């Protein structure tokens, strides 16, 4: 008879093994905390360092700054001039414009695709649609940015006759392409996880397939769809390479979506390489990073809470 021999047990090895695995498990947690600490730490001189505060303070980033003596005060982002100015407003407007366009583009497509794939498509069709749309998320953002810079910008300019080839609409649509798979995947998951018993009940009451979808499945999955939109928005705000390449990178305060824009993330990416370690500019860029971090943290946590609650609700109804 073949005997399966485990080696002699060693309690010490067992104990050390568990501890070693446990230590590794805390790396993810430690990473989030360390990221939080180190991004904020580098931004802190803004709040106490006299040398840095001489050049920029939180107040100066929010209120209008004069160009020179006697000239009209303006919101401007000009960190490299003799009189550096760091107004956050132009960057905020740029980020907002790009994300609004991205969401306007991605929400109908992503949710529409999810509804078709989960409610109308045959099983074989669904097995083709789902991986194909999720393939979009496999395209590296630098490739999407390149595509937007070279191809999409020319197409849009020919269509709409923009003055500036690289503008909020161009960057927003490219961002939207990156956001579609997020909204699609999360909404699709929510729609397909609505329990059969709910749908069967509606069918038994005499509803047809679309009535079941529109009166039972969609309302039940609505929080999941909302979470998909929220998480997609978080991605749109944090995405860097696409806006860096496709937005024109001009920090302008304007209401027009046909103007060039500059976002928080693109500002960090384009300026950090040239900045002096420990200077005011350096602290401001880390401050922008902190804002991005905090924003995505809040967005992501709220999206997650919605998804967890939805899961509990749908499973409770089973």
């Amino acid at each position, binding site marked *: 008879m073949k005997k399966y021999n485990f080696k002699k047990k060693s309690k010490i090895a067992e104990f050390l093994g568990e501890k070693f695995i446990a230590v590794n498990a805390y790396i993810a947690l430690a990473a989030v905390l360390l990221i939080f600490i180190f991004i904020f730490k580098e931004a802190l001189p803004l709040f106490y360092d006299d040398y840095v505060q001489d050049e920029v303070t939180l107040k100066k980033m929010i209120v209008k700054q004069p160009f020179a003596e006697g000239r009209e005060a303006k919101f401007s982002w000009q960190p490299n001039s003799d009189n550096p100015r760091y107004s956050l407003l132009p960057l905020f407007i740029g980020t907002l414009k790009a994300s609004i366009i991205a969401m306007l583009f991605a929400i109908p497509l992503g949710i*529409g695709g999810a509804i078709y794939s989960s409610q*109308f498509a045959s099983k074989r069709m669904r097995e083709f649609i789902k991986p194909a749309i999720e393939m*979009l998320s496999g395209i590296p953002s630098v490739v999407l940015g390149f595509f937007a810079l070279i191809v999409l910008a020319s197409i849009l300019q020919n269509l709409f006759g923009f003055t500036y080839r690289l503008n909020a609409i161009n960057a927003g649509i490219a961002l939207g392409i990156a956001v579609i798979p997020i909204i699609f995947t999360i909404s699709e998951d929510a729609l397909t996880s609505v329990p059969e018993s709910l749908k069967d009940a509606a069918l038994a009451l005499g509803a*047809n397939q679309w009535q079941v979808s529109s009166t039972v499945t969609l309302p039940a999955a609505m929080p999941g769809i909302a979470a998909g939109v929220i998480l997609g928005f978080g991605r749109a705000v944090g995405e860097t390479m696409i806006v860096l390449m496709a937005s024109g990178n001009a920090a302008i305060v304007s209401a027009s979506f046909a103007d060039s824009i500059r976002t928080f993330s693109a500002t960090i990416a384009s300026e950090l390489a040239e900045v002096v370690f420990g200077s005011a500019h350096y602290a401001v860029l880390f401050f922008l990073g902190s804002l991005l971090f905090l924003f995505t943290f809040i967005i992501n946590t709220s999206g997650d809470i919605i998804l967890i609650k939805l899961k509990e609700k749908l499973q409770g109804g089973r």
Partner: protein
Amino acid sequence: MTQTTIQKPVQKDITSHFTKKSSGIIPKTITLSSVIFILAILGFILADIIYNGAGTISWDFLSLPPENGMESGGIFPAIFGTAALVLLMTVAVIPVGVMTALYLHEYRSSTSKITRIIRIAINNLASIPSIVFGLFGLGFFIGFIGGGIDSMFYDGSRPVWGQPAIIWSALTMSLLTLPVVIISTEEALRTIPQEMKDASYALGATKLQTIRKIILPQAMPGILTGAILAINRGAGEVAPIMFTGAAYYLPYLPHKLNDQFMEMGYHIFVMATQ
């Protein structure tokens, strides 16, 4: 058109909640058109890249370094740098990711507080913008760790480790891809039947032995999936490596852990914008 009416009301005089029948043909058409539009975008991007790119690929392009201020020649250093980056990243991220998944799945119950906290951390790690990882790599790996090593072991006259280097890029990237590895390993762990583990324990195996001989071999396909997804993500991200190690142009290939390197995604960015 096939699945519009499946059930009809049996008696018409019973007042149903669903008296007015809308066949759903309009929503079906609208949602189908959005699917077609998304697939058209995907097809157009792929077709455009292949159509414009296929002609330039040749053995020389793949095997030569850039020449004439990067206007001719090939992209070999970028391919090499990307491969080296991804390899270092995989070596760093796979053990940590697998052990995290093992800990969450085998050592702790899924409802315990610590599991929840770690899970929240993983979810948040997955959603942090890649540029923030770049900032972190600069502040933590280069400034804190690298600078710390320099001041401890070197005279500090010029930076040895406290400067952009491939090891810092790889470590930054491994944090970025950690959630991917954890999640796909966990998927694999979930599919291993409890009976197999019970059988192993019944034979007298300890937890560690069960993990090594039963659980890990079974989870291997899932771990490999995680590795592939991580490589896919790591090879495509540019923002985290811009300040932590990638170089515009290097006359030599990286051969030490503290060398800078060229990378394909960064090369695309440089060539497209400079």
